[in-house]
């Protein structure tokens, strides 16, 4: 394969850019150091949740939010582009039935029972928007380590909603038939795809069901056949069922990854996992090729255009050395701290020195040198490798990745700018 475009990183930003470009007929190769970042994430699409005040209308509250943050990557995109990117994503990920909009935040329960603002969720989580309250039966699976139904239910019961509505929640724990050692999310999804196991689960839940109008379970309702599993469970129980995301490995994240990888392959693109970009060759402000470390050897991969979507510090897109030196390891781009404090704060949830690390880009998404000039004509950056955001605290990660990945593709095809 001699691709037109090489994308470094198989997370939300990289896959967005790759899918957009391959949709216009370009041949695209996506490289990921490991298996990509999607299996880590709950597969909900956050746009903006906290400023730090709770946001109810993210698109509208973006402008005042950016006013105070001149370094924030959302400044690179317009509200229209954000909305278009989310709309495009929902269409593309149609097999997962995403619902929601950029106009309004939903409040979805977490595995601790907090209500978390987010914009789009897959259909298996759709009825879990508790903005207007609700009566929930929280179902735990006995022996499953990463979901504690009692704590979820009790915390949900303490929710204070702006609407004044109340959340009522009760927990039950049920046992699944089969080997108790299989109570890991990767194996649970497979077991619940078996009709007999699912029917048994439904029977156990039914005996515990009271007046609750909603039923919540940890996000392990199937893998490829999640639609069918979720649908069938609702039929068996006669009430809406929704999933609550659990810590990594995230099964909804895995489902989304499969859908995105498949879509790219259908369009003629390729994803190469376990391929780590380690350096580049270039002349006169152009990247000619990148050095890629495979399991057994190192290769040079040439292309006309390159997109850096390697993520932030968490996924190796940016690194810190013991002396505090900050690096972008593939193109040796300058890394900015975007106004973050120089010393760590003792308070865990305060902004920390490494929270906003990343590269800076111009309006064409080209990474900038120390003098503020674009370094390469054919290199763009998108997603968490861009400095300036605090994605988990703001609940902004997927929105930034979708919108900047979308835009990076647009400037390459000439549709943006």
């Amino acid at each position, binding site marked *: 394969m001699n691709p037109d475009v090489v994308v470094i990183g198989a997370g939300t930003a990289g896959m967005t850019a790759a899918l957009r470009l391959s949709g216009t007929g370009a041949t695209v190769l996506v490289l990921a150091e490991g298996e990509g970042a999607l299996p880590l994430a709950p597969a909900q699409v956050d746009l903006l949740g*906290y400023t730090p005040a709770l946001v109810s209308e993210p698109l509208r509250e973006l402008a005042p939010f950016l006013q105070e943050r001149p370094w924030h990557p959302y400044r690179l995109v317009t509200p229209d582009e954000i909305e278009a990117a989310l709309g495009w994503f929902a269409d593309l990920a149609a097999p997962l039935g995403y619902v929601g909009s950029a106009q309004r935040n939903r409040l979805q329960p977490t595995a*601790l029972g907090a209500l978390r603002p987010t914009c789009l969720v897959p259909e298996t989580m759709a009825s879990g928007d508790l903005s207007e309250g609700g009566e929930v039966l929280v179902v735990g699976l006995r022996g499953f380590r990463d*979901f504690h139904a009692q704590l979820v239910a009790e915390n949900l019961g303490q929710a204070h909603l702006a609407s004044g509505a109340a959340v009522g929640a009760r927990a039950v724990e049920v046992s699944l038939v089969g080997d108790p050692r299989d109570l890991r999310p990767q194996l649970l999804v497979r077991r619940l795809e078996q009709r007999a196991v699912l029917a048994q689960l439904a029977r156990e839940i039914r005996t515990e069901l009271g007046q609750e109008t909603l039923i919540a379970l940890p996000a392990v309702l199937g893998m490829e056949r999640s639609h069918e599993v979720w649908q069938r469970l609702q039929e068996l129980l006669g009430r809406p069922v929704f999933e609550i995301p659990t810590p990594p490995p995230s099964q909804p994240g895995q489902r989304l990854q499969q859908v995105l990888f498949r879509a790219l392959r259908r369009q003629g693109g390729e994803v190469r996992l376990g391929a780590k970009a380690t350096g580049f060759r270039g002349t006169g402000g152009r990247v000619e090729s990148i050095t890629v470390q495979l399991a057994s050897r190192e290769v040079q991969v040439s292309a006309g255009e390159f997109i850096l979507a390697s993520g932030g510090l968490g996924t190796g897109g940016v690194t810190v*050395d013991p002396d*505090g030196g900050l690096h972008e390891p593939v193109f040796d781009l300058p890394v900015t701290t975007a106004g973050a404090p120089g010393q760590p704060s003792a308070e865990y*949830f305060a902004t920390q020195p*490494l929270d906003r690390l990343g590269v800076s880009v111009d309006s064409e998404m080209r990474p900038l040198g120390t003098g503020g000039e674009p370094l390469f004509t054919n290199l763009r950056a998108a997603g968490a490798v861009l400095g300036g955001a605090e994605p*988990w605290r703001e609940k902004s*990660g997927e929105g930034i990745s979708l919108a900047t990945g979308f835009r990076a593709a647009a400037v390459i095809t000439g549709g943006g700018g």
Partner: protein
Amino acid sequence: MATLDTDVLVIGGGSTGAGVAWDSALRGLHVTLVDRQDFATGTSGRFHGLLHSGGRYAVKDPSSARECASENRILRQVAADCIEDTGGLFVSVPEDDQEYPDRFLRSCRGAEMEVEEIPVAEALRLEPLLNPRITRAFRVSDGSIDSWKTVSALLRGAQAHGARVLPYHKVVRVVRQGDRVQGAVLEDQRTGEQVTVTAACTVNAAGAWSGQVAALAGCEVGVMPGKGVMVAINHRLANSVVNRCHLPGDGDIIVPVRTVCVIGTTDHPVADPDDTEPRPEEIHQMMEAGEALIPGFKYTRAVRAWAGSRPLLPKAKSGAVADDREVTRSHSVLDHEERDGVAGLVTVAGGKFTTLRLMAEDTVDMVTRKLGRELACQTKTEPLPGSESHRYYWVGNRQEEAEADEPDDPLICECELVSQQDLQTVVARRPAWNLDDIRRALRVGMGPCQGGFCAFRVAGILHAQQRYDRPEANRALRDFVQERWKGVKLVSWGHQARQDRLDRWIFEGVYDLEHLPE
């Protein structure tokens, strides 16, 4: 206010106090031991885990060296389950004084230590990551000792002999009748309730805090807290303790402890024993110093940094000391009756973890003399609970146990191989007010993820079992995340910085812990 009566009130639940409680209980005295926090949270739980052979003090402090050598031999018998028999090496690097090794060898022999010079090639074969430029190498009987396990075993043993232990009970007042101490008033730090303990003899075993406790009785103890900084590396770079063969300095010991190794330490006098926040330059000093022993040390993955306060007791009464390392590591038992005219109070200070048994013996000898009860010390031969078979702990033990576990006993901490049943066993027999209390017993949250995956599981399980109510579970989880951050924030580079991002992704992104209701 409730009143409890006891023969011996021990203030301080570190290694010294726990040793005193064990020794007293074995001799047949009724003991009550109290600590303002959980046990081994002060200096004992904040040391590098080195069971000294004596080599470190051989040249400079021969009496300490001799004590270490003989106590090392005893502990290997009576506390085997708390000890890993790693052995130790003293190595000379080209930058060190090349006259020192011969003095070292002579002094070790003088202190009756087991010591053997081995060829450099043999040392490099034993420890392949060691600096290949070392010029000489000596084998000694250093070991690695688990402080929490030791203190916990001492207290369990004491309890089996009738002792009462009260964690989270802070001494708010020492009860004094004229010139006699008669016990203390304690406040439960969890509930605010007070209780009075009346005692025939009170032992101040508060270590670096013993000056503060003595002051409550109107006495002065010139203990000088010496801060020592340590850094844990995410795996064992050496399988034996590696020491630089020179006069003791900063960052010249690497101790393999369980799944990690620890480099230590610094030594700076501080006014407040609670001043245990390492400074960034001290940590970098440790990482640089490690390079002399293990090239590339600086670029290994540090998982955490912390500091402890040594309870140094200058022999001369007060007076400025320029370098803490000039102060002897031997201990003193102070008779306040003879010294200050205050009866019923004994202070034990100075010393070190390796000599905890001897410190306890000397202290309880004085206590029994004061009580007029001639009871012989038994701790030289009586094994601690868990050490009856005299079998050393081995790093593969947890794996062995995990493989033998019931199939429906899931692991809740993959880094340290802790199962749900391990958690049940521990919460049934010791305080679990904080997740940190459980960490000290099980090491949950001490591996590379520093609690990213396991803390939530522990809080959820204990809540489901109604050990924590909802606000307690939320608080326990938040406090633990905050407590872990204290040590992680100081080593935020390389893979640990990356790990911290993953943990934040989970705590902030997946759980939204920050916005959990109170």
